[in-house]
């Protein structure tokens, strides 16, 4: 039975093990995995999550690749389906298809410096990268995280940043708007990026966040000398089938669900209309 490949169009029923409220409107769900989950996932891949009776949406896997049996997803309530998912409680059932998509090219980065730039909820698909790097620090050279978000109360995974620092990751966090008591940086994420943090000649950069944030981050990192082919972005365009059949997520000549969501800047720069690169 377990040798028969699962139908990628058929959701498997799973239960919510744990629900963590990250901030207003954002929840992390830990799901009890089915036998398929034991096969693992690549950091950067996503699942299609089906909220019973409401609908299905793509959500990145934000858990630890070393613990694939625990499926972790961080979800922001923006519409009907994501809202239904964020309301699920421990014990509730939902459907999962996946994992789908290309992962971050971590094997290309082995031995090199790793530059991770995230904006807002874009930290979720990069959390597996940071956990993998923290768990096997000698696999990479320097690992630097640039994380920008709106305000101190929207810092995602705020309880984990210290552990990442302790594991040897150079963590930089900045907010657009400070609040009393905030001791960190204030400014836009691109202001954190500095040539002395990494070796631009060999570094691999991974970017995730709203496209506008990735646009400016890519421009800055490229300006600091990282070649376009080594800057990778997760293009989270909306999709339907998740397996390259329906064409809903067409992005130029590519399909985000099948060929992405991770693309190199070289592949997507013309489509993002990045000027002066």
């Amino acid at each position: 039975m377990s040798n028969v490949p699962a139908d990628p169009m058929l959701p498997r029923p799973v239960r919510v093990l744990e629900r963590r409220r990250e901030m207003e409107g954002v929840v992390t769900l830990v799901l009890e995995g089915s036998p398929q989950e034991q096969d693992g996932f690549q950091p950067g891949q996503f699942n299609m999550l089906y909220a019973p009776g409401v609908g299905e949406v793509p959500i990145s896997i934000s858990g630890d690749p070393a613990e694939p049996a625990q499926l972790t997803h961080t979800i922001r309530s923006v519409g009907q389906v994501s809202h239904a998912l964020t309301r699920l409680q421990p014990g509730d059932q939902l459907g999962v298809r996946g994992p789908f998509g290309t992962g971050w090219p971590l094997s290309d980065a082995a031995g090199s410096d790793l530059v991770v730039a995230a904006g807002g909820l874009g930290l979720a698909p990069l959390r597996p990268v940071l956990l993998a790097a923290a768990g096997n620090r000698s696999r990479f050279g320097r690992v630097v995280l640039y994380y920008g978000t709106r305000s101190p109360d929207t810092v995602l995974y705020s309880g984990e940043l210290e552990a990442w620092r302790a594991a040897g990751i150079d963590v930089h966090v900045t907010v657009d708007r400070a609040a009393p008591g905030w001791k960190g940086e204030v400014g836009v994420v691109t202001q954190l990026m500095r040539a002395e943090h990494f070796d631009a000649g060999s570094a691999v950069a991974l970017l995730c966040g709203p496209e506008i944030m990735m646009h400016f981050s890519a421009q800055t990192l490229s300006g600091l000398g990282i070649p376009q082919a080594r800057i990778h972005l997760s293009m989270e365009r909306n999709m339907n089938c998740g397996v390259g059949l329906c064409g809903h997520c067409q992005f130029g000549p590519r399909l985000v669900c099948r060929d992405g969501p991770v693309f190199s800047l070289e592949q997507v720069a013309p489509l993002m209309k990045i000027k002066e690169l």
Partner: protein
Amino acid sequence: MNRITPTMLAEQSFFHGMEEAHLQSIADCSRLEQYDAGSLLLHQGEEADAAHLLLEGSVALELTVPGREPLVVETLAAGELVGASWLLPPARVHFDVRARNDVISLRIATDCLRRAMEQDSSLGYVFCRRFMAVVVRRLQATRLRLMDLYGHPGLFLPEERR
């Protein structure tokens, strides 16, 4: 003792590529200063008589409003030039500039620099170009912050691409 030389200035990216005579004029107006964490490099409302090029450490630009805790408007790290109000009248400091950790800065006496720039307009032009680049970069960063860069992606995409 703390004599600043053109060579020392040339190591800072703000001054990269400037000619020796210009660097000498700026060095003549400059000295090294140290600030303990928590102390102020510039005081809001006071006469703007200095600019600081941060060599080590970082600072917070704070706006003090009566009845409120000081609000951090922006933080700036080593390599940045701090203090922009001195060039134009009324030359009053807009923000408290507080050391977030131990800071070493190159303090430029701006009266001295202004006089040097008035005597040598090529120095004035070269310095103002670089100064303008800093101001434009900060303006761009402020614009990006106004755009609420990290909000839900759907807000930024045209309907057909969502």
